[in-house]
């Protein structure tokens, strides 16, 4: 047995030695060395879902063809735990040049602490190429500095199952529904029980589905007066309490997801993001979709005009510790340029509203159901406000909203608690 002990002791000993001589933290400080003529591999970190994997492959191909000597090296990570992975990698000094932010929470948190590079100069120097996404750049500034380039932009929309409406003899949802009208329509479309149950509505369990009401009215979760949010929470609660939409409890117990739910053909309407048409297109190709669907503007409070919707962009950024900053900027800049956006448009909702991009987007669909107005011709309000406490706010609205929806608290009480906790926890 002594024989196998030796290598182990050897390993442990050399490990300690390695650690002892590894105090050269300065090597990371050599940032942004100028691009040499050699091959440079840009390490790019992203989360994988099937749609974006193909998109990135095509983007990399086009980019590499245009920039000889540059290659893109992907580090893919599981979608559900991407945030943690990204945080550990960036905090522990892992080697990554550029990356995608899965949410604006992450963007604010990591960029505001300096882990992403400011891109103002790059954006100014390449304003022509970035014209299509320029309108969203201002909203991405943190303390007047830009840290990310948008490549996707999603708002919210209403999707419906035409067959169910035809069968019920009810007119399709119009493009100017208020939330209250949506509730009534959902109730009207609900019928049956057991295996034959048809639900009028499916919304994800996310807090956005109720705080949208306040955002659409132009309110802020950080302001003194949170009353605009009460009505939204009330309507959302009424929706599941009335049985027109499965409750959070049921959704949790059945692991429910809007996509699989809609495909069962037992839900008349779904409210979710504008990435949904892309999913449905894929499902159609896989012949999992066996009914006609339509889409229109997301419902809104009566005070604002139709087409007012929350939007959120998805951004790429360059790591402050990158050794190939210029190349990394070039890569993410390419994705946000008109050429890159045309590729993005084949798979996802692009951030650019340029006509060529919109055409490309439309062309990716094999049916007419996709409604370009509901995607591009909209009045945007922010889904998340980029400011200190953005992650805490997310936790607070989720926890308190959930209690109200489960009937353990009232909407009024929930909003009151949100305000109280916000003032305590966000400093």
């Amino acid at each position, binding site marked *: *047995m*002594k024989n*196998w*002990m030796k290598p*182990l002791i050897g*390993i442990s000993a050399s*490990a300690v030695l*390695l*650690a002892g001589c*590894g105090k050269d933290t300065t090597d990371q400080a050599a940032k942004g060395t100028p691009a040499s003529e050699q091959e440079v591999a840009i390490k790019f970190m992203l989360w*994988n*879902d*099937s749609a974006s994997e193909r998109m990135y492959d095509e983007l990399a191909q086009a980019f590499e063809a245009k920039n000889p000597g540059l290659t893109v090296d992907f*580090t*893919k*990570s*599981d*979608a*559900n*735990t991407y945030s*943690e*992975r990204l945080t*550990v*990698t960036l*905090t*522990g*000094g*892992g*080697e990554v040049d550029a990356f995608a932010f899965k949410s604006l929470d992450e963007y604010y948190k990591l960029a505001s602490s300096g882990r992403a590079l400011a891109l103002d100069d790059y954006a100014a120097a390449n304003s022509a190429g970035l014209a299509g996404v320029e309108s969203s750049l201002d909203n991405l500034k943190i303390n007047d500095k830009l840290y990310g380039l948008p490549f996707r932009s999603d708002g919210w929309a209403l999707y419906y199952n035409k067959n169910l409406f035809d069968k019920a003899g009810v007119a399709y949802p119009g493009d100017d529904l208020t939330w209250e009208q949506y509730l009534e329509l959902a109730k009207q479309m609900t019928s049956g029980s057991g*295996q034959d149950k048809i639900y009028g509505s499916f919304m994800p369990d996310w807090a956005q589905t109720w705080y949208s009401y306040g955002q659409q009215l132009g309110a802020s979760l950080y302001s003194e007066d949170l009353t605009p949010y009460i009505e939204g929470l009330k309507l959302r609660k009424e929706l599941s309490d009335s049985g027109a939409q499965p409750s959070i409890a049921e959704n949790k*117990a*059945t*692991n*429910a*997801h809007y*996509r*699989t739910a809609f495909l*069962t053909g037992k839900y008349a309407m779904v409210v979710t993001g504008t990435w949904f048409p892309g999913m449905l297109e894929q499902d159609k190709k896989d012949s999992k979709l066996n009914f006609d669907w339509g889409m229109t503007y997301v419902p809104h409070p009566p005070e604002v005009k139709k087409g007012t919707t929350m939007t959120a962009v998805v951004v790429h950024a360059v790591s402050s510790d990158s050794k190939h900053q210029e190349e990394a900027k070039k890569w993410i800049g390419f994705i946000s340029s008109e050429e890159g956006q045309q590729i993005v448009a084949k798979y996802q909702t692009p951030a650019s509203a340029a006509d060529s991009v919109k055409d490309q987007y439309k062309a990716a669909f094999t049916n007419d159901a996709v409604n370009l107005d509901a995607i591009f011709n909209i009045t945007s309000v922010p889904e998340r406000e980029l400011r200190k406490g953005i992650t805490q706010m997310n936790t607070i609205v989720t926890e308190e909203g959930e209690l109200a929806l489960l009937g353990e608290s009232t909407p009024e009480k929930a909003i009151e608690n949100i305000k109280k906790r916000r003032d305590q926890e966000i400093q």
Partner: protein
Amino acid sequence: MGQLLGHAVPKSLSHLFMILISLIMIVPFLWMLSTSFKLQEEVFQYPIQWIPQVFHFENYVEVWTSIPFPLYYFNSLKVSVLVTLGQLITCSLAGYAFARLDFPGKNRLFIMYFAAFMIPYQVIMIPQYFVIKKLGLVDSHWALILLEIFSPYGVFLMRQFLSGISKELSEAARIDGCNEFGIFARIILPLAKPALATLGIFAFSWVWNDFQAPLIYLTSDSLKTLPLGLASLNGEFTSQTQLVMAGTVLSLIPVVTVFLFFQRYFISGITAGSVKG
């Protein structure tokens, strides 16, 4: 209970009882198994249908072909076996020193081990990443192996068990001219088989199911372990529970095998291996 109960209970009755409890313990596994053969729309039908109307074996085919199962099996097996061996060796050696040898600083060292055992993993994740990165081991199986081998829990467990073995055995061997390592390897370890089996099973099943460490350290597809593969199934087949369950069933087979292998060390009628503190 054999000795405790004597022959108070007839065998058939105890079998019935055992089967009943077994059922309670494996109900979720039965659900998993039955779900793995269902169609998606059948998965959450209530009341639960325990035996699917039609067995859809194609779920297994789909899962097997959508991720490289053999590769993930191999990677998981490699890491789990190395960690298990490493723990059995280093923890029993250290446990032996703590339990049966005297040396200056013993108390302090042991308290240090114990204190480390109390710190939750989530807290030391980032500092550990620093260390692994300094050693240049990010994206290698060594990261997973080295982080798991030197388990304070394993040392504590071995110390407890080994200190229960009678000291006279060692004394007798010493008089016969055995050196300390000989005593450890030839006399004490064979008596500690149940403890080694317990630690072995624990280490193996822990590493086999570990999701966090591979998630953080592995980036190359060729290095990924099964839990990462299952997670990607989860991502790919959003709420297609039946496929995820089929993958889970496939992933459980090796752990059950390992358990059945180790567990025979519990029946060999060892009498000296009692635990003492």
